[in-house]
């Protein structure tokens, strides 16, 4: 069966202005228990790649620059 591209809003937002991924930081990506964050090498910042979030918050709490905000996933809000 062919696959469709499925769009979804993601609950975790990264402030590009604060993110220091370009300097080598990967803390949020490292700590996420569901492994749903990644670094966008072109933009030089972290982003939520998969909509599979437990809204647990290590990404936000451990980010050294306060760039991450965890929102409650829309379906639960």
């Amino acid at each position: 069966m062919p696959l469709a591209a499925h769009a979804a809003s993601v609950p975790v937002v990264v402030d590009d202005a604060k993110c220091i991924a370009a300097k080598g930081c990967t803390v949020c990506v490292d700590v996420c228990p569901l492994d749903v964050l990644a670094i966008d090498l072109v933009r030089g910042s972290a982003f939520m790649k998969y909509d599979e979030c437990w809204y647990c918050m290590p990404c936000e709490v451990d980010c050294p620059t306060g760039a991450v905000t965890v929102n409650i996933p829309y379906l639960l809000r």
Partner: protein
Amino acid sequence: MNAPVTETLEADVLVIGGGTGGPMAAIRAKEANPHLRVVLLEKANVKRSGAISMGMDGLNNAVIPGYATPEQYVKEITIANDGIVQQKPLLAYANGSYDMIRYLDKLDVKFEKDGAGDYAVRKVHHMGTYVLPMPQGHHVKKVLYRQLRRLRIGVVNRYMATRLLTTRDGRIGGAIGVNTRTSEFLVIRAKTVVLTCGAAGRLGLPASGYLFGTYENAANCGDGHAMAYHAGAALANLECYQINPLIKDYNGPSCAYVTGPFGGYTANNKGNRFIECDYWSGQMMLEFWRELESGNGPVFLNMTHLAPETIGEIETILHSNERPSRGRFHARRGTDYRQRMVEMHISEIGFCAGHSASGVWVDERAQTTVPGLYAAGDMASVPHNYMLGAFVNGAIAGEEAARFCAEVDLPEADGAAVAAEQDRVLAPTRRGDGLTPFEVEYKTRRLVNDYLAPPKITAKMRIAQERFAEIRDDLGALVARDPHELMRALEVQSILDCADMAAAASLFRTESRWGFYHYRIDYPETDNDDWFCHTLLSRDADGRMRHRKHAVDPYVVPVDATEMTAYQKLRIVPAEAAE
């Protein structure tokens, strides 16, 4: 994806799952014998993995001298679990509880103490006093991680174990794992394996419909249960589901264990209490469900009557530890504990001994039925063991594994088994189109809700089995476009295994027991003549599920018949309810 790259590792003690019990098993194995090669394998990152990822609000089951004795605790859990317990492992836990608290205290885990420096234990259970708050419990993982580093334990993050290896004579031989970011293979030959993969928490679908909006850490999808099953280990009482009373939609604890000692309570839509005790048990859940279904639903957690300072204190705990996004959830909906009761709901089903009673069968030494294989925490069969149980039983498993290492040689890896597993694991990467892990998981879990969630009905559970068999055929069409999707494609296979086990185990026990957890409409009565026993499920030589009854061992702590019914009288009769 390219041909699989395979790394190999050797270990004396391989611990799979680095959440709560796993790190403690590794630590204690290494402390028992510093010469051992101890490897801790984790699907996520040990720094922030598992149920206690963000910390914990308190110990739910601390047995502390002056407040409770090990015998009292064993009695309480025996009664809460309708008598179907192995008391020896419960007693081993209870006896180890206080030493573990002091050990954690020494490592710098902070527990609430009174002015005299004694532990400030609170009463939440029906009978005894066992809850020790941890208002600063957000640093538990840091403390564990520091100790792992200190002891130089080998930590392997971002590898998901997929199958256990066994030797020809049926002993444990190691495990196979796959990297969740590169799909690299890892074959670990090991003398002993400790399984600490947590609950099967992605079994039912949360009412919100969001696959990852589970009660349990969503990384815990039942891989441990599935691996143990395929290795031939017995699993106990899987029909005794985990079902919890949770904040509606948010699906996290509200949490009665925190708020109860301050005066919060579970109420119906009239603001009245309807249960005497908020400790989570099958009986409590049955009353909760009845209230939800009645004209008195929904059910709420009421704190509106508490003093503002008390509520402030509760907020500090609930909104900073354990599930800190609770505060955000309430804020968006305008729920202020001072003014509005918190709407509660019933969780999806899962397997979790931590809160309920089912899991991989272990004895008081954390041994499974496979020699050299140990299990602890939410996935092992010691009932109601919560966080402290994961620590104590993890420690027992680690120490026992360390001891067993001295008796055996390092087994060779079974090449044919490794090759077959590589084929199974990589199959979804070899297809260009087909079914996505997301849709197969969604459908499986939706069917779990439709047909397996209590009240259980024989005809519905049989339909579930037919649908699951169809999905099993569909697994041959699973497609994974990157290593992350491959992890999800493997997880859905564990989820389907657990769904099949839940159906089979529930059909086997033809009675009702454990309140709502195993409430069968066709067999509404508890039948002590035929079913006062454990049920064990395992895989026979032909790969089919086999069931057997296993007698409850004679109690080491006697419980008399009059006490046995204490948890069956949780409903408050209306005359008293009008407070």
